[in-house]
């Protein structure tokens, strides 16, 4: 019994943290279900829930198109990042290619503030006639997704025993076959986690998308940002759109959390 009492203070603290984290979600969800008049009275609980905001967002707005654009941008970004990042990560992990300095240069690319890259990207896309297309956004998202995926996979590949591909090569595989037939399958969770995390980052980006997209190519964060401007506000619809944006990502996060530490470390946390 005494032991139980000792557990109360930490539990209480964690509960407080839990409430702080959950409250904004709950409130936003509630707001998306409130009639416009009830939103103006925050502490009034006496309202009839309505699906009007959801209806407008899902059926009459551009939000569904923007969800599609965000998903496409995320898929292409992740696909390209895995195609290019996985072999490179293998080279870093197995052959120490380029030494540790090259590794860090690649990581540094991920850390560059977007403000540095947006001006050249805007002009390049203007010259390539790619403004207002999702390809412009994919290219900018690759600037953080490529280093991230590479770095992520190095951490996973470092844990794969070397005997594995040596055995495969004895069995007649080429170096390349040993990599993609033997090694890649063993880090499947890592690939999944890297893909999911890169997708989340791409899904969440506002800065690049805001400046490079237009009517056809706007992504979801761009759409959400449009709900509250200095000349107009649609609180209920905005709340519905926010829930729409955070729900899939939050669910995905439960799958990716477990692997995140291993990937983010990329060897740095061990040393």
């Amino acid at each position, binding site marked *: 019994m005494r032991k139980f009492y000792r557990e109360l203070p930490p539990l209480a603290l964690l509960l407080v943290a839990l409430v702080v984290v959950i409250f904004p979600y709950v409130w936003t969800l509630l707001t998306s279900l409130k009639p416009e008049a009830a939103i103006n009275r925050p502490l009034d609980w006496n309202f009839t829930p309505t699906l009007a905001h959801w209806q407008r967002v899902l059926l009459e707005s551009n939000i569904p198109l923007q969800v599609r654009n965000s998903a496409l941008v995320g898929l292409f970004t992740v696909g390209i990042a895995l195609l290019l990042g996985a072999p490179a990560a293998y080279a870093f992990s197995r*052959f120490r290619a380029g030494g540790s300095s090259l590794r860090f240069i690649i990581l540094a690319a991920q850390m560059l503030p977007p403000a540095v890259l947006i001006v050249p990207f805007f002009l390049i896309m203007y010259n390539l006639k790619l403004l207002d297309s999702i390809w412009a956004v994919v290219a900018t998202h690759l600037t953080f997704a*490529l280093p991230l995926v590479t770095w992520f996979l190095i951490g996973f590949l470092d844990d794969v025993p070397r005997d594995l591909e040596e055995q495969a090569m004895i069995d007649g595989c080429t170096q390349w076959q040993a990599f993609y037939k033997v090694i890649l399958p063993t880090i499947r969770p890592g690939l999944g986690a890297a893909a999911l995390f890169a997708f989340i980052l791409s899904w969440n980006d506002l800065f690049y998308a805001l400046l490079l997209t237009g009517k056809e190519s706007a992504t979801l964060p761009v759409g959400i940002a449009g709900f509250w401007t200095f000349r107009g506000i649609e609180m209920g619809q905005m709340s519905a759109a926010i829930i729409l944006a955070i729900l899939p990502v939050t669910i995905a996060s439960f799958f990716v959390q477990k692997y995140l530490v291993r990937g983010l470390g990329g060897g740095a946390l061990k040393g």
Partner: protein
Amino acid sequence: MHIAFRYRLLLPLITALLLIVGYPLGFSFWVSLQDYRLTAIEGATWIGIEHYIALLRNNSFWTALRNTLVFVATAVSLELLLGLSLAMLLHRRTTLGRNFFRSILLTPMFITPIAVGLMFRFLLNSQLGVITKLTEAIGLRIDWFSAQNALLTLALIDVWQWTPFMLLLLLAGLEALPEEPFEAARVDGASAWQSFWHLTLPMLRPTLLAAIVIRMLDAFKVYEYVYAITRGGPGESTETIQYHIYRVGFLYYRLGEASAMAYVLIAVILVLVVTLFYSLRRA
């Protein structure tokens, strides 16, 4: 021509990064040396380092840089403190429902920052905000977005979203620590506080360093909260560097000047990271 296998593996990535990072960086530097304006793209003229010289006496730019540094320092230190406390709590074997708490507490870091910004703008709004109304009900009148408080409020929003990231890394760091030194300390009669101060912290240092650097660099990019809530105001009190560059480049259309600002920003960050690394490594 034969290229070693390892370089063949690397080549696609390196090529891609040169194309999407290297080339834009070089191009951006070239732009920063010209009078590049979006309303007269074809008529850009070479002006050398004039933009850089003009930046020296550009008060708004330095205000934005100072605001960003204050924001980063406040947010990251609070995140470190809270993240470490929560990590210690979740690390205890005896804590009930550890996995449940962990998976919920980590969720804010996965949400798009613009949504976080708009949610808090709504929650803290002086007319409609439930948090404002609740604090008023207990007699506490807080003007979250006054000239004095706004930057701090934005930092607190950052704390809400990114403490989970600290928590994640520190929890991993704690779990990787060996058991023996702690056993030995307990046998010697060390208090929980003593073993935290003399064992946990020193052994955790590499993780702490990595976590601080990653968070710092990320916090430098703060843009969405400013865009969603204050647009740099009141006055210039929440004008951050990323927002300032956006404003000069894409609202005033002066791309040359914006590029020069971006380069100065890189230099500042570089100096900061290197100093931090050396001072923390040595300590």
